[in-house]
C-alpha cells in the first residue's frame, strides 16, 4: 500500500518541481502606456479591420474608395463574426503595436476599454469629427472621459413587436401594455417577452427598464454606479412584477433573441421587445403565422409623453494609435460616416444608419419600413455604460437583475448588490 501511493505522490511532487526548472521567464505585460500620437499627417495605404462582411457590402465600398485614392489604398482585413474573437484579435494587434491595423471597427461596448488602454487615437484637434448630423446617442457610445475616441458607424435599437390584428393601437406606456395583457389572456397567448436569459441581452433589457423609468446605471462620468435609486427601483420592478403576475411568461427567463422570435412567429406571444432583424424573418419565415399580422412601435415609456429608452447596439470606427498613416485613416473614417456610405450599409446590410436624416429618406424607408420607428427608438436610447471594465459591469447587472426577476431577492437588495458589484468592477 505504501509503495503504491508513493509512486503517485512522488510523481505529483516531481511534476510540480520539474516544472519549476523550466522557463521562469515571461512575466505578464501590464496595461499599455499612453504613447503620444504620431504620424498624424502621414498619408499612404492603410488597412481597415472589421468582423465578417456577411452581406458583401464593405468590399465594394473599399473598391470605390481605392478607385479615387490610388495612393492611399485601403486593404480589407476581415475578422470572424464572433464578437469575442474580434475583440481578442484587436487586443493582440494593439498589444503588438501593429502599424498595419489602421482603422478598426469596434463594438460599442469595447470602445472604453480600448480607449483606456491608450490604443485609440482621440478624435480631437486635427481629427475632430463633425458629429452634428449624427444621432447624439450614438456619439455617446464612442465617448470616453469626455473625449470622442471612435466614430459611430452603425447603430441598433430595440423595437416593440406587437400583434396588430389583436391590438389595433400599440401601447405607448408600460402600464398600457400591461393592461393589454388581458387580450393575450383571452386569446390564450403569452403577453410580453424580451431577452431575460442570463446573458448580455438581459443587461440590455434591464438597462432599458431602468432608463425608461428615469433611472441610470452609472452617472454621467461613466464610472460611478447609480442604480440604488427609487427610479431604478421603479424600472426594475416593472419587469419583476410582470414576471411575478405572469404577464411575462415563466419561460421568458430562458429567452434570448431567438426563442422570443420563435414564440412570436408561432403566434404565442402578443408583445415582444427585439431588434430590427426580426422584422424580415417574421415576414418571410415558412413557419411564421404572423406574417402580415404584426406591427412595430417604439418601446413603451413611463408615460405617454416619452417612449421607452432603448439600449444601443452597433459598432464604431476608430483609428489605431499605432497607425502609420493617420491622415488617410481619418479620411477613411469620414468616408465611412458619409451619407452615401451609410445609405449603402442600410440598403445592402440592413445596418441602422447613424445619420439622423437618413431615417426620413423615402427610398430607404421603402426597403426598411421600420426605420421611422427605429429612429424614435435610437433618439431616446441610452447607451450601455461606457466603461473599460465592461465585462465585469455587465456581469453585475445581469446577475442581480436575473435574481430579482426570478424572485430570488428583492428589487431593493438586487439594486444594492448591483451598485456594489459595479463599484467593485472598477476598483
Amino acid at each position, binding site marked *: 500500500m505504501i509503495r503504491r501511493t508513493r509512486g503517485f505522490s512522488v510523481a505529483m511532487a516531481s511534476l510540480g518541481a520539474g516544472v519549476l526548472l523550466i522557463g521562469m521567464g515571461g512575466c*505578464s505585460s501590464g496595461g499599455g502606456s499612453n504613447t503620444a500620437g504620431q504620424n498624424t499627417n502621414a498619408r499612404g495605404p492603410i488597412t481597415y479591420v472589421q468582423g465578417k462582411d456577411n452581406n458583401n457590402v464593405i468590399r465594394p465600398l473599399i473598391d470605390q474608395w481605392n478607385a479615387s485614392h490610388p495612393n492611399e489604398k485601403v486593404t480589407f482585413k476581415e475578422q470572424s463574426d464572433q464578437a469575442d474573437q474580434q475583440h481578442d484579435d484587436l487586443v493582440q494587434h494593439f498589444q503588438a503595436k501593429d502599424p498595419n491595423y489602421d482603422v478598426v471597427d469596434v463594438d460599442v461596448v469595447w470602445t472604453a476599454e480600448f480607449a483606456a488602454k491608450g490604443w485609440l487615437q482621440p478624435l480631437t484637434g486635427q481629427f475632430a469629427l463633425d458629429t452634428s448630423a449624427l444621432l447624439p446617442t450614438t456619439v455617446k457610445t464612442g465617448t470616453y472621459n469626455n473625449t470622442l475616441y471612435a466614430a459611430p458607424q452603425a447603430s441598433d435599437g430595440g423595437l416593440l413587436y406587437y400583434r396588430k390584428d389583436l391590438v389595433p393601437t400599440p401601447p405607448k406606456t408600460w402600464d398600457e401594455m400591461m393592461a393589454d395583457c388581458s387580450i393575450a389572456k383571452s386569446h390564450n397567448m403569452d403577453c410580453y417577452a424580451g431577452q431575460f436569459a442570463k446573458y448580455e441581452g438581459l443587461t440590455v433589457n434591464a438597462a432599458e427598464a431602468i432608463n425608461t423609468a428615469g433611472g441610470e446605471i452609472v452617472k454621467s462620468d461613466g464610472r460611478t454606479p447609480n442604480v440604488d435609486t427609487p427610479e431604478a427601483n421603479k424600472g426594475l420592478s416593472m419587469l419583476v412584477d410582470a414576471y411575478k403576475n405572469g404577464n411575462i411568461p*415563466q419561460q421568458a427567463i430562458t429567452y434570448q433573441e431567438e426563442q422570443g422570435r420563435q414564440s412570436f412567429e408561432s403566434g404565442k406571444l402578443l408583445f415582444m421587445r427585439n431588434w430590427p432583424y426580426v422584422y424580415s424573418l417574421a415576414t418571410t419565415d415558412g413557419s411564421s403565422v404572423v406574417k402580415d399580422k404584426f406591427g412595430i412601435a417604439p418601446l413603451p415609456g413611463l408615460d405617454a409623453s416619452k417612449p421607452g429608452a432603448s439600449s444601443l447596439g452597433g459598432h464604431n470606427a476608430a483609428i489605431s494609435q499605432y497607425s502609420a498613416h493617420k491622415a488617410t485613416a481619418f479620411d477613411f473614417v469620414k468616408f465611412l460616416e458619409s451619407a452615401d456610405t451609410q445609405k449603402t450599409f442600410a440598403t445592402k446590410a440592413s445596418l441602422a444608419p447613424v445619420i439622423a436624416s437618413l431615417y426620413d429618406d423615402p427610398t430607404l424607408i421603402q426597403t426598411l419600413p421600420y426605420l421611422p420607428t427605429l429612429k424614435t427608438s435610437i433618439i431616446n436610447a441610452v447607451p450601455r455604460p461606457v466603461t473599460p471594465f465592461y465585462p465585469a459591469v455587465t456581469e453585475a447587472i445581469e446577475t442581480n437583475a436575473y435574481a430579482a426577476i426570478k424572485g430570488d431577492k428583492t428589487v431593493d437588495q438586487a439594486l444594492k448588490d448591483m451598485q456594489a458589484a459595479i463599484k467593485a468592477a472598477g476598483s
Partner: protein
Amino acid sequence: MSVTSGVSADDQAEQQAQASPPERKQGSTLRKGEGRLGLYLVAPTIILLAVVIGYPVVKAIVMSFQKDPGLDKATGMFVSGGSAGFSNYTHWILQRCGTASCPPGTLGAEFWDSVGTTFFFTAATVIIEVLLGMWMALVMNRAFRGRALLRASVLVPWAIPTAITAKLWYFIFAYDGIANRVLHTHILWTGGEWASRFAIIIADVWKTTPFIALLILAGLQVIPADTYEAARVDGANSWQRFTMVTLPLVRPALMVAVLFRTLDALRIYDLPAILTGGGGGTGHSTTTLSILVVDQIRGGFNSAAALSTLTFLLIFLVAFIFVKFLGAHVVQTQQRQQKGTI
C-alpha cells in the same frame, strides 16, 4: 455465507494480475544498456509534457502573483498593476474585492458556489454513470446475440464530440423542444436552478455511461466462468453472486474507471458552457470552475491565472485522496504488471 470454492475472489484477482507477464529471468542479457535506452526513449515525452504542461503551469503561478492593470482615476487610462502578493488568491478564496467582500454579481462572489456546483456535478454524474454502467455491462456480458450492434450503439454517444452533444441537448431541452413535448411538461430546462443542473447531468450521463459500461465490461470478461459456477454450486443466489464474486473481482477496474471519470467530471466545461452558459437558477447555478476561469480571462489575466491554479490544485487534491485513501491503484496496477521486471 462463504464461497468455498477453494480460491477466494481476491486471490484470484491477484493471480490474474500476476499471470499475464511471465517471470523474467534474473540477470537477463537485456539489462545491459537498458537504463540509458529507457531514458532516451522517455525523453521526448517528458520534454513535450514539460513544454505543453510544465511551462503554462509555471507561467500561471508567476502571473497569479501580479496585479491586473487598474485605472488611473485622473486620466482614465490603464496603468500596470505591479506585484499582487496573495491578493489574487484571497480574491477567490476569501471572496475579497479590494477591501470589502465581493458583492453578488462579481465573479469573485461565485467561487465557492462554483466549487460546490463542480463537486455536485461530479458526484451526481459519477454515481449515476457507475450504477447505470454496471447494469449495462452486466446486460452486455450476458448478451449472446446482438453484441456487435450493442457495442456499436454504445460507442455512438462516446464518439459524438461533447460540444455537439451539448448543442443537441440544448435543442432537445428548448422550451418548445421535444423533451417538454414528450413529457407533457413546461420545464425550463435551461432556466430553473435544478432543472438546468439535471439537464446537464442527463446529457453527461447519456454521453459517458456507455464508456463506463465498456470499462466495467472489460473487467467482467476477465472473470472466469467457473468462479460463478463454483458460487452457484455453493447455493449463492444471483444477488449474492453479484456482491460476493462479481463486485470484488471488477473492483480494481471499477476504481480506476471511477478515478478517471471523477477527474474528468471535475474539469467539466463543454456541456454547461453550451447548454446553459453557466446560467440557470440563481444566475450561476451551472457555473463550474472551468467556466468561471473562462469568464474571468477577459476580465484580467492574472486573476484568471490564480483561479486556474486553484482549480488545478483542487483536482490534484482529489486525485491524491482517491489514490491514498480509496485505493484506486493506478500506478500500482501498472507496477503489478511490471512485477517480472522489478
